[in-house]
C-alpha cells in the first residue's frame, strides 16, 4: 500500500477511536497500529478538555436561552413602539450618569475622559482584591533592555526637577493576556532625587500587536479629590488629584496621548505646575 493510502487508512482508524473516546473518555482503546496507540493516550487527554474547561455559566445559559425565547416571541408579536421608547430612555439615563469631558469629578463619581483615540475611566472604590486584579509580573530592566524588548520607542522627559535622575525601569508582563500580545505590556520609569522625592512615568502602547488597540485605560483609586481636563503639548490630557480626604493632596497624575502611546505621569512631591512642566518636556 502506498504511504499516502496507508496514512489515510490509519487516519480513519484513529478518527474512529477518537470519536469513541469523545463519547466516553474512559472507553477501552480499540486495537490500532502500535505506532498509533500512543495517539489514543493523547486523544484521551484532549477528550477531557470539556471537563477541564468547566460547565456553562448559568448566567450565560439564561442569557442565551432568553435570546432564543425572545426571538420566538418576536416572531409572533408585532413591534411595540412603547417598548422601544423605554429602551432608549434607559440607555440615555445610563449615558447621563457618566461624567462628560471637562467636568470636575467629585469623589465617588464615575468619570470618563476622552483623550483622542483612547479614553480614561476613573473610578473610586476600595482597594482591589488580589483575585480581582490580573496576574502581573514586574521585572526590573535596564533602559537599554527595556527598549530592546519593546516595539515602541520609550519617551523620556527632557526636563526634571533639580536632582532628579532615572533610577529604575520596570517592565510589566501579564501572563494571562493573549499570547499574541507583545510583552512587557507597558513600562514604568522611576525618577527620584537623593531625598527620595520621585515621579513615575508609565508608558503604554495604544496599538498592540497587529490588529488590536487599547480603547480605554481604567484608573482605579481609593480616593480622589479632583479630575479635570488639561493640555499637554497641545493634546487633551486628564489631571487627577488624589487625596486622603483631609484637603492635603497626596498624588497628582496626568494621563495623555503621545503619538502611538498613552503616558501617565504621577508624583506626590511635585506641584501641578511642575508636573505639567515635566509632562510637557517628554520626547
Amino acid at each position: 500500500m502506498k504511504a499516502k493510502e496507508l496514512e489515510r487508512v490509519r487516519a480513519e482508524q484513529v478518527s474512529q477511536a477518537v470519536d469513541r473516546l469523545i463519547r466516553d473518555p474512559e472507553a477501552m482503546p480499540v486495537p490500532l497500529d502500535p505506532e498509533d496507540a500512543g495517539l489514543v493516550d493523547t486523544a484521551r487527554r484532549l477528550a477531557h478538555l470539556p471537563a477541564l474547561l468547566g460547565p456553562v455559566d448559568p448566567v450565560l445559559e439564561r442569557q442565551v436561552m432568553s435570546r432564543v425565547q425572545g426571538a420566538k416571541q418576536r416572531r409572533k408579536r408585532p413591534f411595540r413602539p412603547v417598548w422601544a421608547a423605554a429602551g432608549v430612555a434607559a440607555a440615555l439615563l445610563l449615558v447621563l450618569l457618566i461624567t462628560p469631558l471637562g467636568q470636575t469629578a467629585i469623589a465617588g463619581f464615575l468619570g470618563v475622559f476622552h483623550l483622542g483615540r483612547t479614553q480614561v475611566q476613573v473610578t473610586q472604590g476600595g482597594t482591589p482584591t488580589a483575585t480581582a486584579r490580573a496576574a502581573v509580573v514586574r521585572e526590573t530592566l535596564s533602559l537599554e533592555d527595556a527598549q530592546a524588548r519593546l516595539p515602541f520607542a520609550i519617551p523620556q522627559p527632557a526636563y526634571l526637577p533639580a536632582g532628579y535622575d532615572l533610577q529604575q525601569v520596570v517592565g510589566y508582563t501579564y501572563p494571562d493576556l493573549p499570547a499574541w500580545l507583545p510583552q512587557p505590556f507597558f513600562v514604568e520609569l522611576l525618577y527620584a532625587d537623593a531625598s527620595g522625592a520621585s515621579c513615575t512615568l508609565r508608558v503604554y502602547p495604544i496599538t498592540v500587536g497587529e490588529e488590536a488597540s487599547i480603547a480605554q485605560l481604567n484608573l482605579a483609586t481609593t480616593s480622589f479629590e479632583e479630575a479635570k481636563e488639561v493640555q499637554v503639548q497641545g493634546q487633551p490630557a486628564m489631571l487627577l488629584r488624589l487625596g486622603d480626604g483631609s484637603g492635603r493632596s497626596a498624588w497628582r497624575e496626568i494621563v495623555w496621548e503621545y503619538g502611538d502611546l498613552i503616558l501617565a505621569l504621577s508624583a506626590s512631591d511635585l506641584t501641578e505646575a511642575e508636573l505639567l512642566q515635566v509632562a510637557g518636556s517628554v520626547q
Partner: protein
Amino acid sequence: MGQADDYTDLYREYLPRILNFVRLRVDGEDLAQDLAAAVFERAVAKQHTLRDPAAFGAWLFRIARNVVAGYYRKRRLTVPLDHASAHPVANPSPPEAVMHQEELRQVREALAQLSEREQEIIQLKFGGGLGNQEIAEVMGLRAGHVAVILYRALRKLRADLEKE
C-alpha cells in the same frame, strides 16, 4: 423547515459545545462567553437561512467560526489594569497550583504550536464534539482530508505533550 420551538432544545444542547470551542479559540473566559453569546445572537437572527435542520450543528459552528474570525479582525482591548498611583500595582500572590489548570495550560501551549487549520480541527473535534463529516462541512474540506489533518495534528501534539 421546523418551527422555532424545534430549535430551542438544539440551541440548549449546543451551547456548551459552542462555548468550549470558543474557549479554545480565544484567551479569557469573559471574552469566550461574550463571543459565545454573540454566536447565538447571530444564529437566532439568521435562523431563516438554515435550510436543512439536520445540518444545524455544522451551520451553528460555521457561525461560531465567523464570529471568532470577526473578533480577531476587529479586536480592541480595554486595558483592565488597576492603575492607581497611590497604590502601586503589587505583585500578586503566586497562583494556586491546580492540577487541571496546569493540564489545560500544557494542552493550550501544545495546541499553539499547530498550524491554524490543525488547531481549528482539534478545537472543533474535542471542544465542539463534531465528527469528521461535520468538521468538513464547517471548514469546506473533505471528511477524509479532515481525518488526515487530525491524524497529523495528534502526532505533533503527542510529541509536544510527552516533553512536558
